[in-house]
């Protein structure tokens, strides 16, 4: 199910005003944009700069600092595979290699049919049920290759 909206300036303005059109809310605004539109577009940067009375360079600096704030549109499902130590100890490297193979994309890439985006993530706090992955906002634990295929809807 794709909950994401195409970028729309009216919705964007609503978000900015709802979160608060103040410079200290910038990270919160960007986070809300990513949730809504999946990425921060150039138009979004221009709009936020205008509304918060900051320069585009300042917005860009903040956007590029944080891993969450992607600047290209994501696929319908964003699959994040934990790459941190606890998951490494339970085979996350192998799981990542498997995911890259079956989805035909590397980490940070989006599949051609726009169905999946694969991203690394560093700890989901589900370390006692590792390896863990997250799809949109749902976390899955003890994911082996078979469970992975099931979750993403491959045979």
């Amino acid at each position: 199910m794709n909950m994401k909206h195409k970028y729309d300036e009216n919705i964007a303005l609503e978000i900015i005003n709802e979160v608060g059109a103040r410079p200290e809310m910038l990270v919160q605004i960007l986070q809300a944009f990513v949730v809504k539109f999946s990425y921060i577009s150039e138009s979004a940067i221009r709009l936020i700069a205008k509304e918060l009375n900051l320069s585009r360079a300042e917005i860009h600096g903040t956007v590029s600092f944080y891993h969450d704030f992607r600047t290209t549109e994501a696929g319908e499902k964003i699959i994040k595979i934990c790459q941190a130590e606890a998951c490494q100890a339970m085979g996350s490297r192998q799981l990542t290699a498997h995911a890259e193979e079956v989805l035909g994309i590397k980490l940070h890439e989006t599949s051609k049919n726009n169905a999946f985006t694969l991203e690394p993530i560093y700890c989901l706090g589900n370390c006692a049920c590792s390896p863990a992955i997250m799809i949109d906002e749902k976390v899955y634990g003890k994911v082996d290759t078979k469970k992975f295929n099931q979750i993403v809807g491959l045979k």
Partner: protein
Amino acid sequence: MTLSTKVFIPRDTASISMGGDEVAKKIKQIAQNQKKEITIIRNGSWGMSWLEPLIEVEVNNHRIAYGPISEEDVIDLFDADFLNGGAHPLKLGNTNKIAYLKNQQRWTFRKCGLINPTSIDDYIRNRGFNGLKIALKKGSDHILKELEKSGLRGRGGAGFPTAIKWQTVANAKGNQKYIACNADEGDSGTFSDRILMESDPMALIEGMAISGFTVGANKGYIYLRSEYPNAHSILTSAIKTAKKHNWLGKDIQASGFDFEIDIHIGGGSYVCGEETAMLESLEGKAGMIRYKPPLPALEGLFGKPTVVNNVVTLASIPDIIDQGGAAYSTYGVNRSKGTLAFQLSGNVKRGGLVEIAFGITLRELIEKWGGGTASGKPIYAVQVGGPLGAYFPDSLLDTPLDYEEFAAKDGMVGHGGVVVFDDTADMAAQARFAMEFCSIESCGKCTPCRIGSTRGVEVIDKIVSNKNREQNIELLNDLCETMIDGSLCAMGGMTPFPVKSALHYFPQDFKPEIK
């Protein structure tokens, strides 16, 4: 009167990640079909993550546990009459008699699993808000005295005495002060903040309110990592409820004290767990760390005096005030007083949260609670304290869990994460990852961290591919020293610890001809 049987199904991330929501749905559905009167309570987690979803039924005022339960087991459970505590291969008996839990010393986490995290009645029935009531009655000096007696040190990792920090903020001049709760639990292998926020969020709210009252702050922020959406929704609901019942907001319980809490979500940056980077991020900026001094206690959020404490630190305080600082300090050893919620994970049979007094050895923790490796293979390396903690070999596993004992061995207790690796681990790859992670997460402000981490990856690659091996090992050690001495914060300053320990204790892994 129809008697409705209470069924508890945790709503923490571990449980949900193992199918907790589906199990809840299935139980509800079958109960309806079989016309059984049940009340499903989505409690928090007891922290026995390897048993999740761990469901419980209340029978004659006892809670009987079953787990781990999959959707497919549910029909079997009904057939076994689990609603009356019937026998089943997955029956674990009375929850509070499960050895893993019984042998702990639960203080901060005593309500986790027991209560519905968003029920204020559950919270109050279990001595909730007693600490805040005492604070409001006895005043700031009393709180500071009890805190000092408790010996509580920051549970986020640095272990700084909480009483001194609060006293500094209390003494600081200014009519605007802040409480900033660091809930950016980014260390791999740590999840105690998450479990606390998902299982007993009001303890955090109460701890923050006590902190605000003590130092004279009327505004608190929880800086929560974006990787924790479930904690976000539970915290949001708990804050709303606390406000509705006047435990937050204006004139709390007619005391004249106002306190508000806002949640800010991070942007997926590890370094924002460093306190000054977190403050920058709370101000809406990139999480570049700040020079210290000035200390955040004097010039913190928006330049105002700020208490920056970790989730578990703040959540430990209500009971310290309620039970008295002396009671807390009876736990623990030396300068490590009280309890720490250790988190067992990685290649371990029984991963989960173990709150216990400082002083037991790492081996005891891994064997008695963890039950050894999940794979059944020998333990090879253990990383304690997150990605910046050293890798310990078997010969160091008898080190007592104590801040100073660990520091004496170039290790760190940190936030209490314990990640176990079996003998299939390649420690050269782990050392390389430590440098790589630093290069990905470095804020870029200081050169040793920003450039050193990238050079570190390259040098390790050269060592394992046998290019000028001896010179490159020397170079790597030099680089580590530069990063330790020259970095502005723990990110660059501690990344060398996993690297150096891997090289020192597991040199065989750096030789390609052997492994």
